[in-house]
């Protein structure tokens, strides 16, 4: 039983078709890296997998409540402390292990700081630590390494590999080399939706009338 199976998916963003004919499966322990130029539809595809949008065509098969989504925005409340932010998401998802998650993303020393006092990279690390407290098997990550330094990227790769080792899976859109050698790579450029030939909306005789 694969964690995620995508069949012949077509997606749109803002009413425009961006990708079509995308198919892939993700088994437990696997990671898939999505590549492609800006605007090809990586984020849109991930939002579909996360369940925020409905596909135009095709289908997405996965167990209910399997995916944990991490978007460009980290969903942090700046007036709450690092621990409070994480404890909230742990309570919502019914997960546990806040201390372990802080340790894994090297945030233990910052635990009682308000999130407003964190740097961009530290906020990102907190956003990623949230994945660990959700307890969900499929991580859907949208450019997870933005504003992370090299050491943090390596640390994050370790966390992802540990997650894969426990039977989890990850779907990651990224432009850089994450350092997860076992991950497969899917280039989305060939799936870019071809612009449909616009059907003539005027009657054939319209121009002739003015000719």
């Amino acid at each position, binding site marked *: 039983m694969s964690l995620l199976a995508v069949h012949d998916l077509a997606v749109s963003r803002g009413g425009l078709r961006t990708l079509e004919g995308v198919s892939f499966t993700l088994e437990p322990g696997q990671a898939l890296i999505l590549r492609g130029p800006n605007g090809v539809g990586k984020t849109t595809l991930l939002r579909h997998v996360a*369940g*925020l*949008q409905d596909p135009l065509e095709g289908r997405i098969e996965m167990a209910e409540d399997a995916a944990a989504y991490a978007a460009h*925005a980290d*969903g942090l*409340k700046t*007036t709450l402390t690092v621990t*409070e932010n994480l404890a*909230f*998401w742990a309570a919502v998802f019914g997960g546990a292990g806040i201390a372990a998650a802080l340790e894994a993303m090297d945030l233990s020393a910052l635990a009682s700081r308000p999130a407003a006092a964190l740097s961009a990279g530290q906020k990102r690390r907190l956003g990623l630590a949230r994945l660990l407290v959700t307890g969900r098997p499929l991580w859907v990550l949208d450019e997870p390494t933005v504003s992370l330094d090299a050491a943090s990227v390596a640390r994050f790769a370790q966390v992802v590999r540990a997650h894969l080792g426990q039977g989890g899976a990850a779907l990651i859109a990224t432009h850089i080399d994450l350092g997860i050698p076992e991950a497969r790579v899917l280039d989305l450029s060939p799936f870019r939706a071809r612009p449909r030939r616009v059907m003539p909306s005027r009657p054939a005789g319209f121009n002739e009338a003015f000719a």
Partner: protein
Amino acid sequence: MIALLWRDLRLATRTGGGLGLGVAFFLILCTLVPFGIGPDRAALAPVAPGILWVGALLACLLSLDRIFALDHEDGSLDLLATAPLPLEGTVAVKALAHWITTGLPLILAAPLFGVLLQLPVQAMPWLVASLLIGTPALSMLGAFGAAITVGLRRGGMLLSLLVLPLYIPTLIFGAEITRRGAEGAATGTPLLFLAGITMAVLALIPFAAAAALRVNLR
């Protein structure tokens, strides 16, 4: 859900949470009216129930756009939508948090501000009772408006235009209860109507608001 309620209450009470803003607005409004109409008891007392209710309505409106807009900005709303909570429950909890931080302080402050407007003493319990029954509907309808306008930049103005007409039934019966209370007349009928409106709103609106959120998150 309890965790969400606690988080929203905690956010409201921290710096920049806007707690007390509604009550302060209510106070200023109730202070301005005697300046406009004159402090004469004969002039103020008849309009006091209406002014108090309109004031409570506007004060409630002030903080509505915070219900979903802040969570949408920082990405929490996307994450809440993918969380195991039903979106209808999220809407209901957020409306409840709004009521606790805005509606409840208004109810507690209303008798005090009623004195400023020369509201007769025998009307005070009815004012409190009508607000207690009516304001939950205000918060829930506001959550609906906030859900519709969540993706819009500067959606606050549009939110007011959408929500204020929906407040009319609550305003009519709420003010009527207080007016009848001031005159010593029977208040049973408007009280039942107000309670009915609030019940219907609390039962139906979470579904409508959740549907609006789903569309806006696409």
